[in-house]
């Protein structure tokens, strides 16, 4: 407050500050279900080091995480578990679909595998590759950070998540 008692004007918005704080302190939940999980470990460890982007505090509890990194094939049996874990995360929350299996089912176009996690939870960023290279993951993370800063992306994906409806009515193409 200025010494003469005149009202102070904040030259930015609170949103911009909180978004800036959020994008630089993403706490990821590693949901590694298969081989992509190994590549995720490579991104998190010293060679590529995701902590340079503020995402080094890996939390194994959904209640303490902001970003779920879904790395690996999601089987139909795992799908309700993933949905439960996603719902346990506190807002604001983001989802990274890591690799083709998570994004679209990948090569597993058959009865046991979910054809993309975006059929059950809203996804903020897709990273292609089988598995994706660590550089690709870092690129995806930086894209996500840009979108967290603008704030648009998370609102759009939340709205889409509400449209998805209950699980059993979906589940990819039937026959």
């Amino acid at each position, binding site marked *: 407050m200025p010494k003469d008692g005149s009202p102070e004007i904040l030259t930015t918005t609170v949103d911009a500050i909180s978004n800036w704080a959020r994008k630089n302190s993403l706490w990821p939940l590693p949901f590694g279900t298969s081989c992509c999980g190994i590549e995720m470990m490579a991104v998190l460890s010293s060679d590529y080091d995701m902590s340079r982007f503020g995402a080094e505090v890996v939390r194994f509890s959904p209640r303490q995480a902001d970003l779920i990194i879904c790395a690996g094939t999601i089987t*139909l049996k795992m799908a309700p578990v993933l949905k439960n874990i996603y719902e346990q995360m506190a807002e604001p929350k983001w989802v990274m679909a890591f690799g083709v299996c998570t994004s679209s089912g990948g090569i597993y176009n058959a009865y046991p595998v979910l054809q993309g996690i975006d059929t059950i939870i809203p996804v903020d960023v897709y990273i292609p590759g089988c598995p994706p290279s660590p550089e690709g993951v870092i690129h995806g993370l930086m894209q996500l950070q840009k979108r967290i800063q603008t704030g648009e992306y998370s609102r759009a994906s939340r709205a889409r998540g509400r449209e998805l409806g209950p*699980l059993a009515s979906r589940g*990819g193409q039937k026959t």
Partner: protein
Amino acid sequence: MSANQLEAHVAKLQEALGGMLVRLERDRQNVPIFWVKREQVIDALRAAKETNGLEYHFLSDLTAYDDTDGEDEAQGRFVVVYQLYSPQGKTRIRFKTRAADGVSVPTATVLWAAANWAEREVFDLLGVKFDGHPDLRRILLDVRWQGHPLRKDYHWRKYQLFNDPEPIPEHLLKEE
């Protein structure tokens, strides 16, 4: 050495099986395939396991396939396959038996405890039942799953997605 030993084993096993052997085949790697009747499969496996000098102690795999539209479909739609390995001779043999839809096959858990989960997998994916199995439940798929996906009449993209995770079996919730 191994090839000669295998031939000696085959001759010996043919003698031990006697009338139980329906047909003897070879696959492309020259692995002998002993076709036996469903009712006699445990006796045949026991002969391979316990006859002196054969000692096929190791059940390396137990699986099955759906032979719909095969040449011998009339004798039973499913073929249950037993892969045996002899650690002494370092040789492999294979047993096969046929089972029609809804017909039970005697369980191999009386010979190998390792057959337990393998038979559960066969039951889960093909719906072949095993007589005398201690715990014949689904092992891979959700317990609420309808049908058996490795059957040829099951559409390969027929998804079954459930709202909630698989319920925990009641016997696991009980305190001992």
